[in-house]
């Protein structure tokens, strides 16, 4: 500090603070305010997840089998352990234990690298199978595995007897010519017209329209073929839903991964400072703040793990 206002014996006490407690409290308030914004930041993705899962629970049940629970659980353990060492590092700093502080920071950083390494294995496996985000989504044969879940979740495709299904076209759908036609290839546009023109009022609520409108449903399962996800007769729209699951998966874990990377940088910087002996029992704020950030990263993963990996 060039202008230390007489804080010469306290090299890290900024001149605009009364004393070290003042500085510590200000920093602590700052980091908590930052964590609040982080939680609100992530809540947008959790909201997308909630809406999408509420709309298409089956898609989540089916697609989550492509995630390896084993790796997810190991990563949870890695992060929880790194949270322990981060909290321990704060304790070391408070007690002036330099060796312990350096050791615990190092372990925390190593855990962060381990987490990213496992994430890399998971991501590359998914890319290998074509389960990539966005337009890159092009799953290979067997990408979703042949596990127990895969057998339990089947996609029912409405079918009319004697009608052949030739894959990609929607023309073969059994909900009556009108609806199929309306839906066509550009679904959103067609739907709007359909709702307005085809039927007056809310035809969903009115069961009277059932015969005409939901013919396939009305006659029971006999008119549905249960097919695996990659059967050609599964409409494109359903396949798009699976794709969106991976969009959500990559966004949520990706944003979390970016936070882990930032954590590595911050903790690495603090490690060099700890080695230089900057931290004392009266000046350990940066360790405390970084640990709080690290715990928040752990906290988010605690929710992401069951939400993404543990769906049955």
């Amino acid at each position, binding site marked *: 500090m060039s202008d230390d206002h007489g804080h010469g014996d306290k090299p890290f006490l900024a001149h605009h603070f009364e*004393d070290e*407690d003042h500085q*510590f*409290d200000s920093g*602590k*308030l700052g980091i*908590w305010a930052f964590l*609040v914004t982080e*939680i*609100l930041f992530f809540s947008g993705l*959790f909201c997308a997840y909630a*809406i999408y899962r*509420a*709309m298409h629970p*089956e898609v989540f049940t089916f697609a989550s089998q492509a995630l390896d*629970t084993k790796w997810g*659980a190991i990563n949870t*353990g890695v992060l*929880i352990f790194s*949270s*322990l060492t981060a*909290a*321990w590092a*704060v*304790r070391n700093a*408070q*007690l*002036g234990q330099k060796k312990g502080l350096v050791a615990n920071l190092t372990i925390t950083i190593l855990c962060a690298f381990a987490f990213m390494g496992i994430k890399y294995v998971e991501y590359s496996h998914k890319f290998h199978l074509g389960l990539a985000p966005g337009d890159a989504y092009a799953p290979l044969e067997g990408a979703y595995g042949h596990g127990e879940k895969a057998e*339990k*979740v*089947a*996609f*029912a*495709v409405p079918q009319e007897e004697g009608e052949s299904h030739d894959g990609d076209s*929607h023309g073969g*759908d059994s*909900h009556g010519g009108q*609806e199929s036609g309306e*839906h066509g290839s550009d679904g959103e546009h067609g*739907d709007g017209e359909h*709702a307005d023109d085809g039927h007056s009022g809310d035809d*969903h*609520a009115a069961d009277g329209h059932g015969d005409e409108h939901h013919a396939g449903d009305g006659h029971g399962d006999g008119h*549905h073929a*249960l097919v695996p996800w990659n059967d050609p007769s*599964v409409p494109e*729209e*359903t396949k798009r839903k699976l794709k969106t699951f991976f969009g959500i998966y990559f966004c949520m874990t990706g944003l979390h991964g970016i936070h882990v990377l930032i954590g590595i940088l911050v903790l690495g910087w603090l490690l060099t400072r700890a080695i230089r002996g900057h931290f004392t029992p*009266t000046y350990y704020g940066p360790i405390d703040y970084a*640990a709080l950030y690290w*715990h*928040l990263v*752990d*906290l988010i993963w*605690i*929710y992401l*793990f*069951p939400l993404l990996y*543990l*769906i049955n």
Partner: protein
Amino acid sequence: MTATDTAIADPVTQAGAHDDAHGGHDDHGDHHVLPLWLLLGTWGALMVLTVLTVSASQLHLGAFDLPVAMGIATVKATLVMMIFMHLGFDKSFHSLLIFSSFLFVFLFISFVLIDRGQYQGTIDEKEREVIVLGQ
């Protein structure tokens, strides 16, 4: 400030000094040093809960799957916040900050979900294919 000044003189006894002064220090416990057994115990509890949530997911609880998983996650999150993040020993204002953010996240997600529910009819109409669970 007196406690801090003592601590400068002798860092190692700082924890002790604070424990002595703890009575008048409750809402200002910034420098509360957590005992090692508490840190290790919290870690153990978090690991047990992780194993629990994985095993619970394999029990096929049906409709209870999600509430159970979220309940366990919330217990874990509470442990992390209260102990690892020192909220249980910290100024209550920090707890107020973080829990008010949870309140707003709750409002955000639940209102959007309610809104989405209102449009279920329209959504159903848009569904051309039926996806069923099980046989």
